[in-house]
């Protein structure tokens, strides 16, 4: 039976892993390659590496990161951050990344999703969406949550799927950094609407939150950063707990 996936996320700035709390106030949590290997050995099912400086820097740094991680990691990983063209994606995939994640660039140029999925296959195109609920409506935000758009979350997720996204990485800005649990209602609604896997992101504070996002949020994968980086939850303990809760886990 297909397992639910546990995905540690590494936010990377200047070659070091950091984690933004509510997208501000960065903390340093180590070398990305060492951390990636450690997570793989502990049983992480996949990794996401987001280069949060990439937007303002050259493609080269992301490609270097992808190369270093690909050489050492024996599980799949996604690279995101500053990928805005077919050429950017090609460079990162060619370096050994399994998937690329696009966010603001896809909103600004939705055709990019079509182009990437036609060229490289849907399976490697992750569309990341940061959204915030305001008075009952979820609005898509850009540039790490700094810019609000009028785009509605579910309409955009559906459009991304139709254009060829292989997976949606949905981060609730209302929940991110709170450690109070995931946006399970929105996740479940999205899961009912879409036929591609959904990664839940934002709000993981304890093991039960991850169980709940699989059971109530119908998520295919759960992504978290700080709870893993600062060893608040050890992946082997989390997996044992989820198995006991009857969830299909590797």
């Amino acid at each position, binding site marked *: *039976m297909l*397992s639910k996936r546990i995905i540690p996320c590494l936010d990377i700035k200047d070659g070091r892993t950091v984690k933004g709390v509510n997208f501000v106030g960065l903390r340093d949590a180590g070398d990305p390659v060492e951390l990636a290997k450690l997570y793989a050995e502990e049983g992480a*099912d996949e990794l996401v590496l987001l280069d949060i400086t990439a937007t303002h820097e050259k493609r080269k740094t992301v490609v270097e990161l992808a190369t270093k991680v690909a050489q*050492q990691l*024996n*599980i799949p990983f996604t690279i995101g951050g500053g990928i805005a063209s077919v050429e950017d994606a090609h460079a990162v995939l060619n370096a050994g990344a399994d998937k690329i994640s696009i966010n603001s660039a896809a909103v600004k140029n939705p055709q990019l999703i079509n182009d990437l999925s036609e060229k490289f*296959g849907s399976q*490697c195109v992750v569309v990341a969406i940061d959204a915030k609920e305001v008075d009952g409506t979820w609005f898509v935000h850009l540039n790490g949550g700094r810019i609000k758009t009028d785009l509605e979350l579910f309409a955009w997720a559906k459009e991304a799927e139709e254009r060829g996204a292989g997976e949606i990485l949905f981060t609730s800005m209302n929940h991110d950094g709170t450690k109070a649990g995931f946006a399970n209602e929105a996740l479940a609604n999205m899961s009912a609407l879409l036929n591609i896997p959904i990664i839940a992101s934002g709000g993981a504070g304890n093991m039960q939150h991850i169980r709940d996002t699989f059971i109530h949020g119908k998520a295919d994968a759960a992504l978290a950063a700080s709870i893993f980086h600062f060893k608040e939850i050890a992946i082997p303990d989390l997996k044992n707990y989820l198995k006991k809760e009857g969830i299909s886990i*590797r």
Partner: protein
Amino acid sequence: MKLVIINYGAGNTQSVKYAFQRLGINPVLSNNVDEIFSADKVIFPGVGHAQAAMNELMAQGLEKFIPQLTQPVLGICLGMQLLCQFSEEGNTQCLGIINDTVKKFEPLLKVPHMGWDGSTTAPIKNAVFNNIKEQVYFVHSYYVPINQYTIETCDYITPFSASIQKDNFYGCQYHPEKSGKVGEQILKNFLAL
């Protein structure tokens, strides 16, 4: 031992190369027919669209030669699918080594079939594929049906071939290069043939 990875522009070529390097083997990446024929073992990688991949193989003059290889060949993911006769992905004529048609998953569950999965049936005894009791990493929207060459099966939407073998041609739908320690063991098994 000379290991050649057929380098025709497949998406996972580097990942496969790195996986063997982690095992202490330095593979040669080549699309040169003489180089490929001189190999002790050949890896046929593949990620992406069947038609695009076949077009690349034909443009590089490789499609006629791959079926003539006599040394052990391991097709990974799309590389395995291309060993078949035909793929519904782009209605593509493939290499025709295995007389079967690659089919698209009915969208009864989420597609692609993405993530770690295992087998529900006991695998046929095989020198390479003997580890699927532990989960391995899949990512695909098309599948090779169960046929006379099936070694391991997986069940997602429908039972399908997780791995196949016909003579010297081995293929796995999952990615051993991305399947942790289990995947490394499968690659080692292939090297030990």
